[in-house]
């Protein structure tokens, strides 16, 4: 196994499948009469969140606690960060407190990489800027595998704000590693520069792609990241790129609908679609805990340093 989880590209096919297989066993422990496992007893996990997040932080916290690790939550608001402390000084403070792992969410792309250079412990990227969110990609892959039985050969369509989406980038990298075919659908203004080098095809026509999709992943329109107007009106976006009931009907019978949350109901996804039995949105949340337990077990369960036989 790798030492840190910074990018979905860090995971080779075997490592990624190891995480997904381990997550299956972790999910099975949730049905035990005692759900807590003693595996990470005495380890300290710090949740270092420079950006607002509910589900990811709670998911990491639940996963660490189920493995009996001690969890320290650190949010930038109300901390020394608001007094101007640098990331490096914060990192050194955490180091001195004996953090075995740091789960970091940061608005700047690349912050977890810098952190990994300063810390002895394990660094897990929980979302950095518009760059990556590897555990989200893992839980999405887990969800696809548990609903559809495989990932190899699946046709996955990712729709929406690819430009600002760390979920999209991590998913494209991981799904390519695992043998799925990814199609990105977005208005040209919401595609990043260099997207043609990604291991994915690009389309602007959602209706043409839907009948050939096993999985449709809707991305949130990130209004807080939009300084410019990327599309004329919300209504127009919703008409061209939103998943409504009519478009749900165009999907093959077995296809599933995913969304990393939080959703803008009525914008990228219609409420009836979000609540339909083909939507995996609630499942994705519970799968997130199992997948993060697997990641923490594999990165922290061992000696935590170079060797891993």
């Amino acid at each position, binding site marked *: 196994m790798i030492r840190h989880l910074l990018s979905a590209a860090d995971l080779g096919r075997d490592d990624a499948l190891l995480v997904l297989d381990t997550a299956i066993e972790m999910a099975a422990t949730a049905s035990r*009469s005692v759900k807590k*496992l003693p595996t990470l007893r005495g380890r300290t996990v710090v949740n270092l969140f420079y950006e607002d997040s509910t589900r990811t932080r709670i998911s990491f916290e639940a996963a660490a606690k189920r493995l009996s690790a001690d969890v320290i939550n650190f949010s930038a608001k109300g901390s020394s960060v608001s007094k101007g402390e640098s990331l490096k000084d914060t990192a050194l403070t955490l180091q001195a407190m004996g953090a075995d792992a740091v789960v970091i969410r940061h608005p700047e792309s690349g912050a977890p990489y810098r952190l990994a250079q300063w810390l002895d412990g394990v660094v897990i990227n929980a979302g950095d800027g518009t760059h990556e969110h590897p555990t989200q990609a893992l839980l999405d892959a887990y969800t696809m595998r548990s609903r559809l039985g495989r990932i190899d050969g699946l046709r996955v369509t990712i729709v929406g704000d690819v430009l600002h989406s760390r979920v999209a980038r991590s998913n494209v990298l991981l799904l390519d590693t695992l043998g799925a075919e990814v199609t990105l659908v977005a208005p040209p203004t919401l595609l990043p520069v260099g997207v043609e080098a990604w291991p994915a095809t690009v389309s602007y026509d959602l209706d043409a792609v839907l009948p050939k999709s096993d999985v449709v992943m809707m991305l949130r329109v990130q209004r807080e990241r939009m300084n410019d107007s990327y599309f004329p009106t919300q209504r127009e976006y919703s008409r061209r790129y939103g998943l409504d009931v009519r478009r749900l009907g165009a999907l093959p019978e077995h296809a599933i609908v995913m969304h990393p949350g939080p959703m803008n109901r009525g914008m990228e996804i219609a409420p009836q679609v979000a609540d339909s039995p083909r939507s995996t949105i609630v499942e994705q949340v519970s799968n997130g805990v199992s997948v993060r337990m697997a990641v923490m077990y594999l990165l922290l369960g061992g000696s935590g340093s170079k060797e891993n036989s």
Partner: protein
Amino acid sequence: MTPAYRTPADPAEPALGSPPRTILDEADLARIVDRIAHQILEKTEGAADTVLLGIPTRGSHLARRLGERIAAFAGSPIPVGALDVTLYRDDLRLRGARALEHTDLPPGGIDGQHVVLVDDVLFSGRTVRAALDALSDLGRPRAVQLAVLVDRGHRELPIRADYVGKNLPTSLAENVEVLLREVDGRDAVQLADRRDSR
């Protein structure tokens, strides 16, 4: 699961020193499984309310074989499952995180049942300690017993087996290798010089 001292035969890595000595062959193994099956039937009064739980990988194959023999002798099937204890081990930090094996509990669960844990080799007793911890998180069995194919001594914890296939006095410089048809292609127990002294 006790990998460090039970390294399966690996052709790419020949044992140092003398070649492995065969302690039990296929016929011996079959007789031992039959005997333990009878002993379990005797001690549990016909294996009523009894569950066999094997510790992966080889323990779960042994548990399945025992279950088949007990079913043949008693005339009625007995629940057999597998219990992975990796997450409960006390040596994870020393050896690094490993892939988990599948835990498979019989549908009836283990509450109020007579649980017989099955493993291939009893050595330090730490695997069994981990299994007892795992069991207490899964439910509350009425009683827990332990069946092993080989007891090689060198216990580090106050644990003993209720059913022993063979008591095999060993030195710490030796490896007990249990080979099973399901995993290794043939049935045998061998004693070899230890290859890695971890």
